[in-house]
């Protein structure tokens, strides 16, 4: 039998109320609760105060900005998967959401919950890393934003301060027509990724104007394969060039052994998934 320890429950209706409610030594935010509640049921987490932000409906919006799309913190995975704006500009999101846990969990789990939980194999941290997203944060001192490399510090550790909450993430539109693709290997459908790869390719004049490869499950945080990206930019936009650059994808990776896979197995998956993602992205970019 597993039950949370007692806590004080606060349910703010506005962002200002939420920030006030977080002014406490041991407060935790609950959004979808799909990672936090298991940890509370196991009593791995025992907050004195739980701040439930589910009634702050302004956090549920997905909207167009001048330079991209803004996804509200409380956007559920299931809603992101069927959102028309995301489908138009970032079809990779729906593709990735198909790998997030199961139907009931996608109905409840949120974008900001996944970002703040910061599991190194989770899909949202990888998407935001791949797409150069800006994580929007509100605290008692006002708004700030953080790049993924500043926000994700270590497994399950982020740059969020005690009296802060993530209000959303901004995804800038690519500089031109692009192709994107997502690949993942997990032991069973909906399990945590052993390795996940997201690719974005932009082609101009038959050359790679931009290549991005994001990887999950192979480091303390989601990472970009910068060496591969740099080597491919400016090359002829051909599958052979992608193939030739694949060994660069595992540079600087430090995967861990765990119950699900050995570090060696993870490393061996990287070029396989990178190839699949990059080639599909190239195909989509040149269609």
């Amino acid at each position: 039998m597993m039950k949370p320890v007692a806590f004080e429950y606060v349910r703010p209706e506005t962002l200002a109320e939420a920030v006030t409610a977080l002014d406490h030594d041991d407060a935790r935010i609950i959004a979808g609760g799909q990672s936090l509640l298991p940890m509370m049921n196991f009593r791995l987490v025992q907050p004195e105060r739980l701040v439930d932000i589910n009634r702050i409906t302004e956090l549920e919006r997905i909207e167009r900005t001048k330079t991209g799309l803004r996804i509200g913190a409380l956007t559920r995975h299931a809603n992101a998967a069927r959102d028309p704006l995301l489908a138009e500009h970032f079809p990779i999101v729906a593709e990735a959401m198909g790998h997030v846990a199961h139907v009931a969990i996608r109905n409840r789990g949120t974008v900001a919950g996944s970002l703040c939980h910061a599991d190194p194999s989770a899909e949202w941290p990888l998407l935001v890393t791949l797409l150069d997203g800006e994580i929007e944060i509100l605290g008692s001192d006002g708004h700030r934003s953080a790049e993924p490399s500043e926000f994700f510090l270590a497994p399950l550790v982020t740059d969020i301060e005690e009296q802060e909450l993530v209000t959303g993430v901004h995804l800038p539109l690519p500089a031109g027509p692009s192709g994107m693709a997502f690949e993942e290997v997990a032991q069973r459908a909906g399990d945590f990724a052993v390795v996940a790869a997201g690719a974005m390719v932009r082609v101009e004049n038959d050359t790679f104007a931009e290549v991005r490869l994001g990887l999950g499950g192979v480091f303390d945080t989601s990472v970009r394969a910068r060496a591969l990206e740099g080597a491919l930019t400016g090359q002829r936009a051909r599958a052979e060039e992608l193939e030739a650059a694949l060994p660069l994808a595992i540079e600087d990776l430090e995967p861990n052994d765990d119950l699900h896979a050995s570090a060696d197995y993870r490393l061996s998956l990287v070029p396989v998934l990178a190839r699949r993602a990059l080639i599909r992205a190239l195909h989509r970019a040149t269609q």
Partner: protein
Amino acid sequence: MTGKARITLTVNGEPFEAEVEPRMLAADFLRDELGLTGTHVGCEHGVCGTCTIMMNGVSARSCLMLAVQLDGAEVQTVEGLGTIRDMHRIQEAFHEHHALQCGFCTPGFLMTVCDILESLPLRTDAEIRDALSGNICRCTGYDHIVKAVRTLVDERDGAAS
């Protein structure tokens, strides 16, 4: 609120009002406070799926929600589907296809099927298996469950069986 919280909700069409401790899980509230023990509790950390309910029209894990979060919600549990004498079509299909043996996982499967029949195309059996992947069954080997859902999808889509 530090003490108990007052919640009002609708369960299977019936209004309820209750006082709950904030730490009480939604699954425990349904079972222990309302006596609706059709919602089963298995792993209590969101893995097995047997506690799946419908909340505001979509499926949710009732072990990963607090009772206090049901405030204002419309909940449907397996008790709201049908009775032994008057089964819901999903229950009939499970019965016809022998899609259960011990029955422990069945309430969760039935509620998941309520959701996916509404929300997903389920064109192939692989898609059905993927949609059911959040519910664990240790008896059937899943084959008969997939067949029951295939029948329901074909009926939904008006396909000739």
